[in-house]
């Protein structure tokens, strides 16, 4: 089933490449950013203040994305759609599929090797333009998440199978800042109860209230089409039974035009649900429908 979804999105993506005239083109290339793991416009791990589309304030935009993170013992696939309205409001829906290693599946006698989670996102731009305004572009957003099955989460001691993250993000592009190359940075503060992004539930014996986590990204545009950078995402540790680490990655993105972008990253997720040293490859593609 999952394979079929992936194929559909891939075919959709190829179709997009072939039909460039449909896209909203009101923003400068690369300023739509990438698709974040939970479906918001951003970097890869971190939601940014920029919205998920090339819409200017007179246009709308829609996009779909697929991201696959393959680390030592786990695999996470994220697929979603996002729409951005008049460079003001972004709405997104994403389904995440987290695949557990066989050892955990048999160890816990689980019915399924997968944990699925739905994420609905809303983001509103409050101020500015990442490229042109004197101060950074600032947006606020929320991500409401719901697990399809809470067996693993409750087994580990999580309090809830759903939760809502709230964040404020600031993004700025500095033209010609580093030897003439454009520098982009983003800083996000997120109030969350989520364990491993919510895949292991919300809250736990160590803490069941909201905590504010800092997330950051920095990138350098090597050309109009290539960006390299790194990201960091601080995470809470609510479950005494399983240790949780901050996430980081280094990435390279290719944006040949305003219809599609591709990102490859090397991610270090630390310890995830008892398995140490979870490192691996992150691949992502966004296609812009219009």
């Amino acid at each position, binding site marked *: 089933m999952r394979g079929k979804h992936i194929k559909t999105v891939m075919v959709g993506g190829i179709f997009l490449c072939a039909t460039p005239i449909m896209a909203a083109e*009101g923003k400068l290339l690369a300023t739509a950013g990438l698709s974040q793991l939970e479906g918001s416009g951003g970097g890869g791990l971190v939601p940014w203040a920029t919205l998920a589309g090339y819409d200017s304030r007179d246009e709308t935009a829609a996009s779909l994305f697929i991201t696959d993170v393959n680390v030592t013992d786990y695999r996470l696939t994220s697929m979603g759609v996002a729409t951005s309205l008049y460079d003001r409001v972004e709405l997104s829906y994403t389904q995440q599929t987290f695949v557990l290693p066989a050892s955990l599946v048999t160890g816990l006698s689980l019915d399924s090797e997968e944990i699925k989670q739905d994420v609905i996102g809303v983001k509103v731009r409050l101020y500015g333009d990442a490229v042109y305004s004197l101060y950074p572009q600032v947006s606020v957003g929320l991500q409401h998440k719901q697990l399809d099955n809470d067996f693993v989460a409750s087994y580990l001691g999580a309090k809830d199978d759903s939760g809502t993250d709230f964040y404020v993000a600031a993004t700025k592009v500095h*033209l*010609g800042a580093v030897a003439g190359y454009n520098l982009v940075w983003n800083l996000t503060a997120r109030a969350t109860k989520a364990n491993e992004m919510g895949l292991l539930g919300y809250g736990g014996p160590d803490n069941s209230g909201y905590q504010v986590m800092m997330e950051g990204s920095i990138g350098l545009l090597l050309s109009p089409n290539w960006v390299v950078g790194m990201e960091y995402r601080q995470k809470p540790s609510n479950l005494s039974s399983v240790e949780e680490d901050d996430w980081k990655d280094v990435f390279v993105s290719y944006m040949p035009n305003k219809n599609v972008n591709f990102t490859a990253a090397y991610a270090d997720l630390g310890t995830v649900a008892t398995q140490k040293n979870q490192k691996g490859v992150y691949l992502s593609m966004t296609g812009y429908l219009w």
Partner: protein
Amino acid sequence: MVNHLKTALLMMSVLLVACATPTKTPISLYDEIGGQPTIEAITDNFIDEISFNKDIYRYFEKTNITRFREKFIEHLCVDTGGPCTYTGDTMLKVHQGQKITETDFNLTVDLLVNAMKKAGLTYAQQNRVLKVLAPMRGEMLYK
């Protein structure tokens, strides 16, 4: 042995020359990109880009292109630190009443980037020109 000594001396002199370079006064962006001929080439390419783009050309239908060319060259020369004086109207006055949308503004930036690329500017030089022009956006948009 003598060869080694020669090589070492040669290396040393190269290094000394390299040390001496940064102490020169930094050249302006205007000089770096090639001075007046490059500024004129960018302007001519830009006019060319505009004339082939129907979305943007409509803003220029009543424009005196000779005057536009002259004032644009002056402006770009001053912006990049060249030895010129701008004798045209303010950016606000020039763009007022045109109701330039954000979409068209960004499209025009793309055209200017094409014009700079054709004039031989590197990506880094293009970014530095955009950096000096960027603060003027407020006087151009939706006026």
